[in-house]
């Protein structure tokens, strides 16, 4: 029994890490730009598709993992510049709706570019095996995913805490006027943050390709869960997004054993409890 619990825990952790990659982008963008980005799921999807193309071109999964998020990030950067900026003067609901429009268009553009079929999952050199835990195999790739999750946390934390751009970001999240007063180009900052958020989600997308199937509708499915995650964690809070991602991942995983059919219900119940008793989420704070 104990090894089953550990196995479920590990798979839950890895599921949580994918949620973290997408919800960190979501919460970061919200924290700085104040925009709830429906298209965050599309960046996840684009990460997978672009990664697939890079992989086809270079034959190297690691190059794909490196380049796909950057390409998607650059795309997001320009998307923000040209199509999202005009919406900042609008109500936040309109911004949400606009990104919803982006999601619709991106899903269908992806279908036009990459076709409607399922894109095969690449094999990752060196990570195809498994390690034995309690005489049962656990895939090395899942361990790698868990490690990548923690790595992104560490990198983000270091970036925000100890680097100059990171400090500006934190300042901007609490007080944009102050940041502007410091001579920060807020408009450029917004574009960069939007791009950074896309990079995180796209990284999730490309990292998921070896274990899941990529199709144009994949962004839709994941964005809903990411919303739940950031409600639990507290909007705009990276710490909250991380903890909540793990909580949701673990609930889903243990739910499969202890309450099949109802694991999603369990997540909703947590959301309701958070709302009633701790309405600003687990970690109500900025970035």
């Amino acid at each position, binding site marked *: 029994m104990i090894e*089953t619990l550990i196995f479920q825990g590990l798979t839950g952790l890895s599921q949580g890490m994918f949620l973290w990659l997408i919800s960190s982008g979501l919460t970061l963008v919200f924290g700085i730009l104040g925009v709830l980005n429906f298209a965050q799921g599309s960046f996840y999807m684009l990460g997978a598709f672009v990664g697939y193309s890079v992989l086809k071109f270079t034959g190297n999964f690691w190059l794909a993992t490196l380049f796909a998020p950057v390409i998607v990030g650059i795309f997001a950067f320009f998307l923000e510049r040209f199509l999202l900026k005009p919406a900042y003067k609008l109500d936040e609901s309109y911004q949400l709706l606009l990104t919803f429009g982006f999601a619709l268009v991106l899903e269908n553009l992806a279908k036009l570019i990459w076709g409607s079929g399922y894109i095969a999952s690449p094999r990752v050199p060196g990570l195809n095996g498994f390690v034995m835990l309690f005489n049962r195999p656990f895939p090395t790739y899942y361990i790698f995913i868990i490690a990548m999750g923690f790595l992104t946390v560490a990198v983000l934390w270091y970036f925000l805490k100890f680097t100059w751009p990171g400090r500006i970001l934190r300042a901007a999240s609490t007080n944009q006027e102050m940041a502007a007063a410091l001579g920060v180009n807020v408009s450029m900052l917004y574009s960069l943050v939007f791009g950074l958020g896309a990079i995180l989600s796209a990284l999730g997308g490309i990292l998921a390709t070896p274990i899941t199937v990529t199709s144009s509708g994949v962004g839709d499915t994941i964005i809903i869960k990411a919303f739940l995650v950031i409600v639990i964690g507290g909007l705009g809070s990276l710490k909250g997004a991380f903890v909540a991602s793990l909580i949701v991942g673990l609930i889903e995983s243990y739910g499969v054993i202890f309450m099949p059919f109802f694991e999603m219900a369990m997540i909703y119940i947590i959301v309701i409890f958070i709302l009633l008793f701790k309405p600003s989420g687990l970690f109500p704070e900025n970035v």
Partner: protein
Amino acid sequence: MKKFNRRSFVKAGLAGSAAVLFGGLTGKKSEAKTLKNPIKIAHQAVLSGNFATYGKFHEMGARLAVEEINANGGILGSKIEYTMKDATLKPAVAVRNARYFVEEWGADMIMGIDSSGQALAVGKIMPQLNKPLIVTHAATSQLNENLVFKEGIKQIFRVSVPTYQDGISAAFVASKLPIKRWATISPSYTFGRVSWKAFKETLKKLRPDVEFVSESWAHFGTVDFSSHISKVMSSNAEGFFTTEWAGELISLINQGQKFGLFKKFKEVLLSLGGAMDVVEALGKNYPEGVWISCRYWYEYPPTNVNGSFVERFYKRWKRYPHYVSETSYSAIYAYKAAVEKAKSVKTEDVIKALEGLTFVTPAGRRWIRKEDHQAVYEVPWGRVAHTDKPPYVTLKNSIMVWPAEVYYPHPPFKENDYPPYYNNK
């Protein structure tokens, strides 16, 4: 309802005899006159979202059939006009499309449909639309058992196999395998539940010594199966059965490989593992030795009809036919056969002609049962082996087939009566 039946019977009789009469008197030319030109066939399937690939495969099969028929003089001289629409997976959209096809576009026959909910919703309004509907994918047994057989909605036909293939035939395969304990990860919706139940109950009757030790239910849209895999792998099962399909099956297989699922279980049955979307996506990575089936497999039957179909299909689309391609292709040929038999495109005549119709298709000889309008035909199971050429998967050396009559439930349908027609002889 009675009145309707009598009138249609009379009409059908009149039309039929008129056609025979004229045909006898004046030969082929006037036959064409009694028909409509062009004959309009409307097709709908999912062309957007996660399952968009299904719609594309549907369309490829249907277009090939239409092109061939039109190139060879059409149906009794009438050309086919064909249209295709995105049905998404929403019943409301499928209903709207069906209404559009019949009431606006003027379709003589409508076909396609992927999800059970859509098939049932469209099926229910067929008496209003009163055109033949040939379902080419949706597998719910309610369609033929309830809507056609019990409620008498005669406009509905299905050329693809119902869930019988997914649950019951799998149990026949399982009964021949030297293992006793089974587990599943099944889709957490009607299709998955019905199939697992059919599998369990059939197998229990065929092999009373079997046990079902672990089941895990995955939501529609599950992306990550690892916790389900981890759960079933913690059981002492020896065999694994699933009716997961399309993208979710690909994810399940991928993740299963990483977790050593195909090593842990001695036998694995994938009822829809033979679908070309899955085969294409996995190719050489398809785990060897697992049992797969689907509603048509490109290598079976090894007839000339099938061989040349696969060849033509590949030539036209540079891909191998998916089962929905074959069923779409055959649906059009079934309709052609019926119209030629009835020498009429009138719904009543076509229905009569389709009932009991036997026709040769790439998937072999199909026979449309009169009572429930279900096409009965054989579909194989086999073990995955690899080849060097696309699609890299072959079942040639391990094919296992049961006559469809053996495992198809027969009218009158009794609830939960598995296996339906099989006696322990």
